[in-house]
């Protein structure tokens, strides 16, 4: 077994001996893969941002200004018993005013008011599994007594989510096309390898090599090239993100926020490399199946 390995390494070394062509191939594969994978990274980041900004969806219920403590209790009980609602949070009007003062820095303006303009409010967290759509729930809650207004927060997040879905579809199409390109590149590389090693293949067949024995090093070569291409793609993405983050840092300081692009996760990195390796193997397999049978000793 060790011997087979050593022999295969020898074959691989011979195959990689044309260094420039090999490096160019790996570069092409890397660039081709880094496009969809890079877009995927940006989408993941956008999605993280959306999740961060919107949190879980919630419905704000504003009560009418004349609601009494009694009405509040009654409404709370109703809400807590509602099957589609997971949790309810009550924000008393005084508390809301206090928060407003602190968060906006409008303390002076608000202090000048002679009465609290804010109503009592409930923040309703729907159950994620609820069959009812969020908008239906909002309409239903708006009809409850003493409810002035029901407002579905983070509706914009849903629109953005739809946009992200569109983006994911674009990535999927792009990834499929470029995967085909990768298979084609490997197919052609292996075809050339088979042609240049025609003599060796012929002799090996003459002295009793099985097809599996002849096929194996080409498959390894395809897989190795794919893997190196995947690593190249990973490097391209990681370095690009480092450069982009450097610029983003300056930008986000202007907006007084903390936003950085996260790199590929460990799992995604591994998936990228293994997928690329698999595609290389597949391209090699197709090429070998097509071309090896044409070489018969004469």
């Amino acid at each position, binding site marked *: 077994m060790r011997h087979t390995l050593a022999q295969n390494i020898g074959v691989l070394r011979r195959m990689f001996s044309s260094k420039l062509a090999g490096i160019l191939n790996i570069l092409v594969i890397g660039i081709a893969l880094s496009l969809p994978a890079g877009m995927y990274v940006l989408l993941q980041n956008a999605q993280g941002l959306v999740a961060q900004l919107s949190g879980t969806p919630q419905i704000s219920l504003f009560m009418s200004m004349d609601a009494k403590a009694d009405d509040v209790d009654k409404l709370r009980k109703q809400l807590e018993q509602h099957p589609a609602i997971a949790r309810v949070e009550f924000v008393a009007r005084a508390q809301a005013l206090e928060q407003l003062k602190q968060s906006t820095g409008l303390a002076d303006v608000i202090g000048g008011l002679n009465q609290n303009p804010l109503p009592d409010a409930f923040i309703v967290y729907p159950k994620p599994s609820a069959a009812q759509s969020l908008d239906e729930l909002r309409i239903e809650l708006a009809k409850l007594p003493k409810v002035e207004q029901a407002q579905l927060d983070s509706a914009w997040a849903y629109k953005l989510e739809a946009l992200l879905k569109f983006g994911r579809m674009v990535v999927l199409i792009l990834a499929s096309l470029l995967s085909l390109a990768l298979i084609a590149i490997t197919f052609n590389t292996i075809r050339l390898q088979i042609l240049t090693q025609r003599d060796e293949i012929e*002799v090996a067949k003459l002295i009793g090599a099985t097809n599996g024995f002849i096929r194996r090093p080409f498959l390894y070569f395809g897989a190795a090239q794919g893997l190196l291409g995947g690593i190249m793609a990973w490097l391209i993405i990681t370095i690009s993100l480092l450069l982009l983050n450097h610029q983003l840092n300056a930008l986000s300081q202007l907006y007084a926020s903390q936003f950085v692009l996260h790199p590929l996760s460990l799992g995604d990195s591994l998936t990228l490399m293994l997928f690329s390796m698999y595609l290389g193997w597949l391209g090699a397999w197709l090429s070998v199946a097509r071309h090896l049978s044409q070489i018969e000793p004469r």
Partner: protein
Amino acid sequence: MISFNQVHKRYPGGYQALKNVSFEIAEGEMVFLTGHSGAGKSTLLKLIAAIERPNHGSVLVNHQNVGVLKSRALPYLRRNLGIIFQDHKLLLDRNAFDNVLLPLQICGFDYRESHKRVRAALDKVGLLKREKSNPIALSGGEQQRLCIARAIVNRPSILLADEPTGNLDTEYAQEIMAIFKSFHQVGVTLLISTHDESVLQNTNVRVLALRQGELQPASPFATSGGSGQAASTGSGQA
């Protein structure tokens, strides 16, 4: 060991290489195959190794009809044959040692055993000191001996040699014949083709003579060559 029964071989395009050839070679026999170029010697050897298939008749090697072998079974037939090619078919991208190593790698021998066998084979043909040389740096005779080393490293029971002395001067040719005789002495079955009948003059072996694809009756050199003195022309035409 090897048996041809009314074998015909016609190549695509209509060229009739072998006509109604029948003979038998017993285990441990050393047989020469003579004839001018184009007489069908190479075709006959190729039929034994199943590089070509007969159009008619059967070719048996170890009681196995190789003419109808599935391509999946071919490697295992060929591992039992040592083939020496007129044009060597040595690989120029590796040294002499690795050329001889190839058949053992194909059969999956382990590292230590295969290296031992390669050295033994190289020693046998007198090339142990040249193991690091590229075949291109070897003389014609040395290349031919390297090819022999590669054919025997696997210890096959049958050795086929196609014009092994074809391009060599007499001295080298004698050397190679001596090597073949030593294999014969340890019981290997040999079939050696040659167009140069001078190498046979001092030898005492059975000869199969081909002329235009047909086997000729009893050759002048033929004396006792072993148990299987069964050479015959199938059709009896002369």
